């Protein structure tokens, strides 16, 4: 088996600026991250705000340029391919909030047509492809003429998934795809993603802060903290035998609904006060040892 996505030594630093726009130093958002996802597998990236998980997603999508390191999709380095049809045809993304990621002035069909047009899909074939995609995400075909405000949250997310699948990518980046949804709707969207993964032979990078969901969806996980993967491995083994203190803290913080789950949570005293995040470390560093570039 070969890797669908391979990330080697990926780093990203952002310059920090004073109120007047002068560079005052830099902050490391992603620091030497490496992992690989085998074809057809789901890899979960878990982390809190400021952990760098969205920056990693943006770099894979080509929305942010890495400071160093490389990203290989299906064995090919994406550097130099960013913005090309070839890159877009390999990887697509589903965003967290479908209310914000769908244009309110476009009908479902028009939203789905955007990637089709960008990939020179014959105009005559678009209605057929749109209908096919709506079937795939289990929405009635008449939804093609609806606007986002006429759809429920779960339906909107299905449209976002259809749009991501329009150009038949092999790899899908899911950035908290169900965090805006009710739990029963979440279960149905996860069902859909699992089915699509199976029938279309998709590989998923699943970004989430919901550890319970990750336990049930991802075969392997990486725990991100301050831009570094502090622990990675098979989901079951990371959850049952966490090694890093931060993984333990995350697991201990999950609200659960059964005694069995409670028994899984490490018994550690929750830190009182603030857990340092990248943002806060930056604030501290800015005051004391701001490295000038």
């Amino acid at each position, binding site marked *: 088996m070969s890797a669908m996505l391979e990330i080697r030594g990926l780093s990203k630093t952002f310059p920090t600026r004073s109120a007047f726009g002068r560079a005052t130093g830099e902050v490391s958002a992603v620091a030497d991250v490496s992992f690989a996802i085998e074809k057809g597998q789901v890899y979960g990236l878990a982390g*809190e*705000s400021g952990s760098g998980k969205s920056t990693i997603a943006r770099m894979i999508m080509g929305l942010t340029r890495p400071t160093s390191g490389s990203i290989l999709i299906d064995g090919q380095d994406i550097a130099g391919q960013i913005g090309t049809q070839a890159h877009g045809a390999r990887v697509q993304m589903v965003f967290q909030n479908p209310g914000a990621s769908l244009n309110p002035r476009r009908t479902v069909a028009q939203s789905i047509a955007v990637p089709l047009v960008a990939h020179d899909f014959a105009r005559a074939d678009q209605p057929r492809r749109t209908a096919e995609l709506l079937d795939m995400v289990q929405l009635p075909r008449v939804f093609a003429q609806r606007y986002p405000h006429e759809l429920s*949250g779960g339906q909107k997310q299905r449209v976002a998934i259809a749009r991501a699948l329009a150009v038949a990518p092999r790899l899908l980046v899911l950035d908290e795809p169900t965090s805006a949804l*009710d*739990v*029963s709707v*979440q*279960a149905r969207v*996860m*069902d859909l*993603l*699992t*089915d699509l993964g*199976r029938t279309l032979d998709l590989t998923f990078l699943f970004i989430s*802060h*919901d*550890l*319970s*969901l990750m*336990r*049930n*969806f991802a075969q392997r996980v990486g725990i991100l903290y301050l831009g570094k993967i502090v622990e990675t491995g098979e*989901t*079951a083994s990371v*959850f049952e035998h966490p090694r890093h203190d931060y993984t333990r*803290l*995350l*697991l*201990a*913080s*999950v*609200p*659960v*609904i*059964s005694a*069995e*789950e409670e028994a*899984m*949570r490490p018994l550690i005293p*929750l*830190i*009182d*006060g*603030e*857990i340092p*995040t990248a943002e*806060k470390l930056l604030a501290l560093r800015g005051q004391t040892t701001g490295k000038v570039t």
Partner: protein
Amino acid sequence: MSALLSVRDLSVEFTTYGQTAKVLQGVSLDVQAHAQIALVGESGSGKTVTMKAIMGLLRQPPACITGGQILYDGRDLLMLADRDRVALRGTAMSMVFQDPMSSLNPVFTIADQMTTILKYADRRLGRVRGARDRMARVHEVLAQVRMREPERVSASYPIMLSGGMRQRVLIAMALLSEPALLIADEPGTALDVTTQAQILRLLKDLVTQRGLALLMITHNLGVVRETSSYVYVMNKGRVVEEAETATLFANPQSDYTKSLIAAVPRLTGGTRYGTVTP
């Protein structure tokens, strides 16, 4: 024992563009003094409307309370004059809001906002307190929500605080005039999981230590289990089930509750996503 707060057969309708929707249909719930109660439901279940009706925050129109009573300490809040109703808000019962970003005014310091609340609460209760005493009370309450440096926090603007600290400021605001009932609307949902765990534990500790009653409004069954001893499940404007929290999870009765519990992913794994292909 009579309840501190008792909602009886509450019905609310919303009228928009000439169309009427029955949003609450005969909702009843009790909160005893010192009890920790949860009201759980998905979006559109009516839990927020119930909370707003209790706090007197429903805008009428479009809302219209078509029936029922909301008894606080034996008095029907729906029968009170607006003036008396307002006097109870923030003094007898307080709210902790969900979103700490939008519930604080960005252009005033925490001390400004908290002393203002205290000033009005004092006025309603006919208490007299000088500016210095008000400030002392603000610092005292900030210390109660485990702020390490109350003086520094009170002099800060909201933007200078982290999400978790802002949420704690909101809890402090709710505690300012020592209410008997705290209504919490999804506190911590906007925060990271580790911060949320801290906030829930803080709330739980405060409620038990200070002998408050807590009505926790949430969509998260995990939060229900962690913070309440008795729970009401709402769906489509009705209470579909009520039970001791432990009983609800061990032996849910209604189909809706069963489906809700089944939809929650477990930390122990075992959920099979995808349609089962025969």
